[in-house]
């Protein structure tokens, strides 16, 4: 008993030693992005097509100048569970982009208007060209950005998240980043060419503030603030990184209903079968202790 108590004390000591440095570690990491309301959060949350269309407008008019979206094709814009463009609209959007094709009969690569089956063309021919044009900074591809970014949730949040189904670290971070441009705090030396961003890990970000109020025109009366732009483009990027989310949650609900009924039936069957073992052992057929042990 005493030994047991000693071990508990040792464990408590170990825990108390690690607690302060946990806080220290979190402080020097990145700032926690303020959580936003997302239509696609939770077990029944789906994308809002109008929001995705607004976000796509921002991508096309602003982000696409520097950021590629390689994994998406124009046809995806008309996919179910997406921004809800018609095929004709998606084809018209594709025609607005110039795509490199070839080689042709003369062995030359050539430019042609995009078709619905094409993937989004990248703004730079390669990473080196992007770096050369942008002062050394490489804009990441945006296809998986909303899943490829996150932040340390820390204890106990990482446990609570499993129950609340919080999966929107990436969109929260993107929204916070777009709203996180500030003047550097006193004593912070910014490397040349970098901007200060409250939410970027290390704070020195190569991307200049990309959005300002009123920059992108909305036709549906939604407010044209950076806050709203940030939410819309983050939602668009969430869809771009997880285009099957609607399908996944719909199927998930059906699977859940099926499994609950099946498991319930299995439970009652099991209970019925075991009833006689538990309450009327004299009625069960006797069994030898182990089959292979012959004496």
């Amino acid at each position, binding site marked *: 008993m005493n*030994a*047991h108590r000693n*071990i508990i004390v*040792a*464990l408590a*000591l*170990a*825990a108390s*030693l*690690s607690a302060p*440095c*946990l806080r*220290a*570690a979190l402080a020097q990491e990145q700032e926690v992005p303020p959580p936003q309301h997302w239509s696609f959060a939770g077990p029944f949350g789906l994308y809002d097509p109008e929001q995705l269309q607004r976000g796509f407008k921002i991508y096309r008019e602003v982000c696409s100048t520097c950021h590629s979206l390689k*994994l998406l094709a124009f046809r995806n814009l008309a996919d179910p569970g997406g921004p809800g463009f018609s095929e004709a609209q998606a084809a018209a959007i594709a025609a607005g982009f110039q795509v490199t094709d070839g080689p042709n009969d003369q062995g030359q690569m050539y430019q042609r208007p995009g078709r619905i089956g094409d993937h989004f063309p990248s703004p730079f021919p390669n990473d080196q060209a992007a770096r050369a044009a942008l002062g050394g900074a490489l804009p*990441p591809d945006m296809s*998986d950005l909303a*899943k*490829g970014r996150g932040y340390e949730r820390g204890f106990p949040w990482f446990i609570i*998240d*499993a129950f609340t*189904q919080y*999966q929107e670290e*990436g969109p929260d971070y993107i929204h916070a980043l777009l709203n996180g441009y500030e003047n550097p705090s006193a004593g912070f030396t910014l490397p040349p060419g970098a901007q200060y961003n409250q939410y970027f890990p290390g704070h020195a970000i190569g991307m200049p503030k990309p959005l300002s109020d009123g920059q992108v025109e909305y036709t549906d009366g939604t407010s044209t603030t950076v806050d709203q732009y940030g939410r819309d483009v983050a939602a668009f990027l969430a869809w771009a*990184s997880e285009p*099957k989310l609607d*399908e*996944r*949650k719909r*199927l*998930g*609900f059906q*699977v*859940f209903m099926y*499994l609950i009924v099946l*498991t319930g039936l*299995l*439970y009652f*069957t*099991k209970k019925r*079968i*075991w009833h*006689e*073992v*538990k*309450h*009327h*052992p*004299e*009625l069960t*057929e*006797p*069994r*030898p*202790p*182990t*089959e*292979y*042990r*012959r004496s």
Partner: protein
Amino acid sequence: MSGHSIYEPQNSIIQWLERRLPVASLVYSSFIVYPTPRNLNYWWTFGAILSFMLGVQIITGIVLAMHYTPHVDFAFDSVETIMRDVNYGWLLRYLHANGASFFFVAVYAHIARGMYYGSYKEPREVLWILGVILFLLMVVTGFMGYVLPWGQMSFWAATVITNLFSAFPVVGDPIVTWLWGGYAVGNPTLNRFYSLHYLLPFVIAGVVVLHVWALHMVGQNNPTGVEPKTEKDTVAFTPYATMKDAFFIGLFCLFLAWFVFYIPNYLGHSDNYIPANPSQTPTHIVPEWYYLPFYAILRAIPSKLLGVVALGGSIVLLAFLPWLDTSRVRSANYRPLYRQFLVVFFLVVIGLGYLGSQPPEGGYVIAARILTAYYFAYLLIILPLLGLFEKTKPLPSSISEAVLRDGAPVGASAPPPPGARA
């Protein structure tokens, strides 16, 4: 042998087959009439769950392999194609990735049950050792599978883990070069990992057959740790154990579905959605959650070589549990001191898991060292001594006695339920 274990098929085709290959009677004696202790609790369903999960992993894996391209330039994009363009590809991949995690959930529960009820003790030593081999195979297979999507964590986990072998003097560096198939983690590494990741699950399936064979030689342990003595102590595998297993597999599927359909990326790391980049090291390289306790042990030891030895030892020592534990009483239910030390051991492993996810600095390292010390002290000092000095509680004379002590007595004269066999 009682009459009901002799299989007499009525069907003439099965009779014909029986005279040539008695596969039907093998299934009959192993999975139908096989006597199983009547007092098994739900911790004994994890064996069935593990078999089920192995099947899920193999089936989803084979289909994923039809669409995957094992090449450094295409692997990441081919996984994304599976997620975006293959019919139900997202479901297959999320099932496979989360399935791996849940495979480990089940195996840890299975191991913990074995430790709590002393299932490794005589005559089940070989059964237990086969289990440790299965766990090692799972660890290797899971690690190689994590490398295949070729994201940042894939690449850097492969780099860190293969580099562990460089800790060995003289032979270390040649071993690492041999593992890589080159002088850095690259295309040959990815190709051989893919090849082995496809092979090892079938090796696992083979060892599972041996594991089940060994189990059926010695019979199952049970919560009392007292061997079945009379026919009252056991029930038939089917329908009693099969229904119990089926019910718990249903529950386990619900648990898995929660992750697959609603939080599919919860157990992963966001960095693995960034394509592998050998010139950019992630801030923290962390393995998947199921390796974290061992990762913490590795980093707790200041010397790299000793760290690697401790990492390997922490798993290999488990194979020696039958001899490290000197007590003749199996079940922790009758070993009050052992039970407390064991619960602390489980907490220590969970604590090490947490510490493995944190950066190796300051108090984390000190805590990891304390917990690592307990891990090894438990196996090498506490267990051997405890068996010699511990005063155990009196064991029940039989399973039926333990089961029926607080229930209806054997031969209770309650009226039979309607429809019961007379």
